[in-house]
């Protein structure tokens, strides 16, 4: 028996070996690229963050210097606070708007394809193009101010023209000003997101909602109709159906959209680089923009080590928030 089964076994293992060999050859381009540009580069990033150097000098080991200066680094903290405000506003607004639009679009109707295509246009266009279009719309003499003038005019009020892309006044500062409260510039973090920052938030929401809407639409179509039938037999109203059937069934996609949104908003770069370069008064400075300018030395000497260490801190923050969100949303699923 052993003599009979042995050659068969070796043949089988030979075929298995051939298969594994083939698989590794098919995988080799990926393995090569990922070993160099993901694993290698990641290790290199750790090393760089403990050194001081620019492109022209050799790395010089400085230990924890860049991590020790973290809490006194006013610019970096400022960029983190800005990014935090940004994520805090953009992620919930874009997620709920996307769900709302998807639910409306999901009803049986004509011209669905047409509306879908129209809605998706802003998110397929490059953020650079959208930024330039919005720059023009946000001009003091642009359409946005014009629209506000008209709307204010309906109520007989006068609209004060706003220089949207160069206005450092913060949201809470504006709200409190009529009560005679003035927030000093040393308490800048209490002033809230500046007008310019909120203008960029609005632009970003405009471009990301459609992508997420498509994800929700696909998920909505996967919800079995029998669930709604059962709910309506039990006498659930449309609103109850939305909260008791639709939202729980959408939970995995909501998680994905929130996580993707968080990763995206904390790393916002394009709009800032084109529209404001971090200004006015650093109210739109973001971590990735700071990392970019410091690494390349756009304003001053190139500081690669500093930039790499800040990138790690940013990565940890993003990881922390996505982890919390995952725990939070998944725990909600268990309760149901």
């Amino acid at each position, binding site marked *: 028996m052993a003599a009979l089964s042995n050659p068969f076994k070796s043949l089988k293992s030979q075929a298995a070996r051939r298969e594994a060999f083939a698989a590794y050859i098919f995988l080799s381009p990926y393995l090569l690229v990922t070993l160099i540009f993901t694993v290698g*580069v990641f290790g290199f*990033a750790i090393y760089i963050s403990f050194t001081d150097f620019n492109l022209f000098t050799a790395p010089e080991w400085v230990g924890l210097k860049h991590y020790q200066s973290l809490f006194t680094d006013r610019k970096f903290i400022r960029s983190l606070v800005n990014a935090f405000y940004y994520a805090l506003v953009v992620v919930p607004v874009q997620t709920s708007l996307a769900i709302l639009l998807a639910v409306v679009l999901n009803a049986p109707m004509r011209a669905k394809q047409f509306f879908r295509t129209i809605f998706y246009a802003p998110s397929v266009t490059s953020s*650079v193009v959208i930024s330039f279009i919005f720059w023009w719309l946000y001009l003091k003499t642009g359409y946005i101010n014009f629209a506000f003038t008209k709307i204010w005019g309906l109520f007989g009020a006068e609209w004060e023209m706003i220089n949207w892309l160069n206005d450092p006044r913060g949201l809470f500062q504006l709200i409190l000003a009529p009560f005679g409260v003035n927030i000093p510039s040393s308490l800048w973090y209490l002033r809230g997101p500046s007008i310019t920052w909120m203008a960029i938030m609005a632009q970003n929401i405009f471009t990301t909602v459609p992508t997420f809407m498509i994800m929700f639409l696909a998920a909505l179509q996967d919800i079995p109709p029998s669930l709604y039938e059962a709910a309506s037999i039990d006498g659930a109203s449309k609103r109850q159906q939305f909260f008791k059937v639709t939202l729980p069934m959408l939970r995995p996609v909501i998680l994905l959209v929130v996580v993707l949104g968080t990763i995206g908003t904390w790393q916002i770069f394009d709009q800032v680089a084109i529209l404001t370069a971090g200004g006015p008064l650093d109210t739109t400075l973001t971590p990735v923009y700071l990392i970019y300018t410091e690494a390349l030395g756009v304003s001053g000497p190139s500081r690669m080590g500093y930039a790499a260490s800040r990138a790690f801190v940013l990565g940890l923050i993003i990881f922390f928030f996505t982890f919390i969100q995952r725990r939070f949303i998944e725990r909600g699923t268990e309760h149901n």
Partner: protein
Amino acid sequence: MASIPANVGTGKTAARVMITRKQVVTALRYLLLSAVGLLVFAPFILSFLGSFKTNAEIIAFPPTLFPAEWQVGNWPRLFRTDLGGLPRPEGTTSIGLIVGLFAFYLTFLLTGMSNKKGDEGVPMRVGLPLALLLIGLGSLGVSLFLGSQVPGASMMLRSSTAVAIGLLMLIALAIIGMSEPDWRRVLVALAGSLLVGALVTWLFHQLAILAGGGRFLRWFFNTALLSVIRAFLQLIFCSMAAYAFARLKFPGKGLIFSFMLASMMLPGAVTLVPAYVLIARLEWINKFFGIVFPGIVTAFGIFLLTQFLKAIPRDLEESALVDGASYFQIYRDIILPLARPALLTLFILQFQAMWNDYLTPLLYLNTADMWVLNVALQVFQQNFKAEWNLVLVGAMVNAVPILLLFFFFSRYYIEGVSYAGVKG
């Protein structure tokens, strides 16, 4: 439906109220959608109309909807503007070599293998060394070409490029070589493909010189080439990896796949600085290599295709395996045709991703002849600050190809995005 309540006898008025209410809801829904649709599309319409206005008209207050006089000349004026800068040899050579590499790949994979195994002709112990020699000569040719075209090309640039292109050629040889092919045919195909690659390299080198330096035509050429080449290379390499993940058994599969999924969650900001240092050390700044080589395969692309392949039945491949087909034949003749819809989806998504990318080209391409449209548009705006009409024409030239692509293939777009979302 409408007649049912009337028959039941709850009263005609109730039925009428039901109908009208339903109609009102439908009408409201269409109204809402049209309003949102108009709002969403308004920036595009406004800027398209704006691109035909005069300088003064475009920043006048109150703004008008239509131009008083249609300035059709704005569009050709954009293409005539020249921000200066001549095509540099480094840039044009890198464009040529990348397109040449791509042409080599396509020709070799398509012609390198016959369906019947040849037992006559060149045996492996002769064929393999000869093929390796050919590839070595090809790499040497790359290095010599760079040396002859780029004045003062450093050793680092010549060797890093030759090694990268040589490695990719070796992978192509390994893919075909593992299937016990007819080695005479492999040698002929390899020599032919190297020739095709060289010809295409030279052709695109000339085209890039013709397109000029700091002009819109050149930026359009750069952007289109980068997007097409990167998306096509991803189709080849992502589908290969996806075939391995979806169909083949090999040790370490689960580990590599989980690693790949984890790497998709790694924020790009973390690797930004070291990747830039690495590309700068390889002397690939201001060359197409620095953008194309790291992007020939992405975790997202592999993941998308793997999920698709897992869902299609295996009957065809199993009978082909029994008939003695090699893995490469199965991949080329069965898997690729079956995966066509997913491949088209991936192509469109990756084409769009490269076309719309801003940070990577901003980092790696910074001379006037190497810019892509996104980067060029920013410099252009700084130079023509007062001329918003020209800037808007530039924005439209950048947006229109992507919008057209989307309107024609919106089904594939939507499938790709929702697929990544739902199944992720």
